[in-house]
C-alpha cells in the first residue's frame, strides 16, 4: 500500500533521513520505533508531503506521491494524527471533526463515521461544543485520532500518540488503536514507547539517525537484543 524506497530528506541543512526504505501492506499495523531525533516524525512529514525528499521515491497504492502537495496526498487516502496533536484550538471539537472530513463529499458517510468515532471516543462526544484548546492532553490526543479517522483514510499515520500521557491514558489510547485495527484500517504508528507499539503492531522498523537499522515482525523485534537493550531498557 505504502512504500518508501531509499528516501533522503533534509531538515534545513541537516540530513534527517539518510535512505529510509519501508513498506506498509494493506490491513497491517506497522510500528516505526526509535529515540528522539532519529527521524520518525521526519519520515511521516515526508510521506504526507510537508517535507520534500531530496532523493528516493514514495509510492502509495502504486502511484508516486513524493513531490505531491499535502492536501492532494490527504485526498488520496492518507490521514494523520500529527505529533503534538495540533488540534485547532479556537474551534469546537465538532468543527475539528468536520475539518477532518473536509475532503469528503459523501455527507451520509461522514455522519456514519461521526457516530463511529463517538463510539470509539465517548469522551470526544461529551466535549463536542467545547473549544479544542480547552481539552486535556489525553482528550486532545483522542480528538486528533478521531479527526484523522473522519477522513476515512485507507492509511492512518499516528505520530507519538502516547506522548505526554499518563500510563492509564496510554493504555486507553492503545486499546483504541487495537479496535481501529480490528475495523480494518491500515496504520503506520510512530512511537518512542517501543513496548506498547510493538504489542499492537504486526511488523516493526527501528530507525536510528535517519537510517532503518532493523525490521522484522513485531514479536521478533520484542525479543531482539537491539530492541531489548536500546528501547525496552532490559539488560
Amino acid at each position, binding site marked *: 500500500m505504502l512504500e518508501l524506497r531509499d528516501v533522503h530528506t533534509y531538515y534545513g541543512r541537516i540530513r534527517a533521513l539518510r535512505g529510509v526504505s519501508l513498506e506498509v501492506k494493506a490491513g497491517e499495523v506497522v510500528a516505526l520505533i526509535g529515540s528522539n531525533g532519529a527521524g520518525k516524525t521526519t519520515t511521516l512529514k515526508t510521506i504526507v508531503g510537508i517535507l520534500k525528499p531530496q532523493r528516493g521515491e514514495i509510492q502509495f497504492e502504486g502511484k508516486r506521491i513524493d513531490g505531491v*502537495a*499535502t*492536501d492532494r496526498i490527504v485526498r488520496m487516502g492518507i490521514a*494523520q494524527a500529527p505529533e503534538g496533536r495540533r488540534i485547532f484550538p479556537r474551534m469546537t471539537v465538532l468543527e475539528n471533526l468536520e*475539518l477532518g472530513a*473536509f475532503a469528503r463529499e459523501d455527507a451520509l458517510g461522514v455522519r456514519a463515521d461521526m457516530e463511529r468515532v463517538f463510539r470509539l471516543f465517548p469522551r470526544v462526544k461529551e466535549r463536542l461544543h467545547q473549544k479544542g484548546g480547552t481539552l486535556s492532553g489525553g482528550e486532545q490526543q483522542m480528538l486528533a485520532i478521531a479527526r484523522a479517522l473522519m*477522513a476515512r483514510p485507507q492509511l492512518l499515520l499516528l505520530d507519538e500518540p502516547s506522548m505526554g500521557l499518563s500510563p492509564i491514558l496510554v493504555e486507553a489510547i492503545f486499546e483504541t488503536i487495537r479496535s481501529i485495527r480490528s475495523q480494518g484500517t491500515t496504520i503506520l504508528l510512530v512511537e518512542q514507547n517501543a513496548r506498547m507499539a510493538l504489542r499492537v503492531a504486526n511488523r516493526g522498523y527501528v530507525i536510528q539517525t535517519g537510517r532503518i537499522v532493523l525490521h522484522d515482525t513485531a514479536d521478533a523485534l520484542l525479543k531482539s537484543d537491539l530492541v531489548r537493550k536500546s528501547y525496552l531498557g532490559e539488560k
Partner: protein
Amino acid sequence: MEWYEVLVQQTINGLTRGSVFALIAMGYTMVYGVIELINFAHGDVFMLGLFIPLTVVTLLGVSTTLVGWQILGVLLPLFLVTMLVTGAINLTIDRVAYRPLRRAPRLAPLITAIGVSFMIENLAMLWKGPAPIPFPDLFPNVDILNAWLGIDTLIYFTTKDLFVVVVTLPLMLALELFVTRTRWGKAMRATAQDRETAAAMGINVERMIMLTFFTGGALAGAAGLIQGMYYNIGQWWMGYQAGLRAFTAAVIGGIGNMPGAALGGLFIGFLSAWSDQYISARWTNALVFAILILFLVFRPQGLLGERPPDRT
C-alpha cells in the same frame, strides 16, 4: 442645538463613519489572520472601490440622483461589479506581490505591501488626477426625522445614513455567517489557526489565502462605494488615511478577530466623530493613534483577540 442634540448628531456621524471603517478593518484582519501580513495596500483597494464604480456610472451616463426602481436596479449591480473587481484586484496583488515571498522573512512582504500601496496610489493619481473628484449624488437624501416622521428636531438623520447601516450590517453578518457556518469558512479559519495542519486535513491552503484576499478586497470595495455615495467626493490618497484608521480598528478589536474588527471600526468611528466635535478635527488623528499605542502597550491582544500581534 442643545448639547444632547449635538451628541446624538455626532453619534450618528460616528456610526456611518465607523461602519465604513469596520468593513475595511474586517478585510485587514482577515488577511492578517491567515498569512500574518499587515496588508498596507488594503486601504488603497478601498479607494479603488470608489474610483471603479465612479468610472462605471460615468460611462453609463448616470449623474443624477436615482429614483424609485432605479435605486435597486442600479445600485445592486453596481455593488456587485465593484466588489467583484476589487476582490479580484486584491487577489491579484497577493498572487503577484506577496505569494513569491510566502517563505521569506516577515519584513519582506511587509515592505512589499507598502510598495504596492504607493504604486496603487500613484496609478490612481495618474488615472483621475491629483485633485479631489466628485462622486455623483446617487442616493436620494431625505431628512427622515423631520420630513417623514414629523419630529421637530435639529438632529439630521437622513436616508443616506440609513442606507450606510442597511448595507453594512448585512455584509458584516453575511461574512460572520460565512466564516462560522460554512465548510469553506471553517477551512479558512482552520488555515488561519494552523496552516500545516489545515493542509493535513486536505485543505488547499493557497486557495484559502486567495479566498481571503478576494473576500477582504470585496468588502473594502463595498466600503469605498458607500464612502463615495455618502460623501460624494474622493481623492487618490483617501485610502491611506482610511487604511491607517481601519488598521487601528483591527488592532483595537484584536487583530485576526473579525467581530473584533467590526467593533473596533465602530469604536474608531464614534471616537473620531466625537473628537472632531468636542476636541478639534486637527487632533483626531493624534487621538486615534494615541489610543492605538495605548492598546499596543497595555492590551496588545485587543478587545476580543486571544493572541497578541507579532512584532514587525
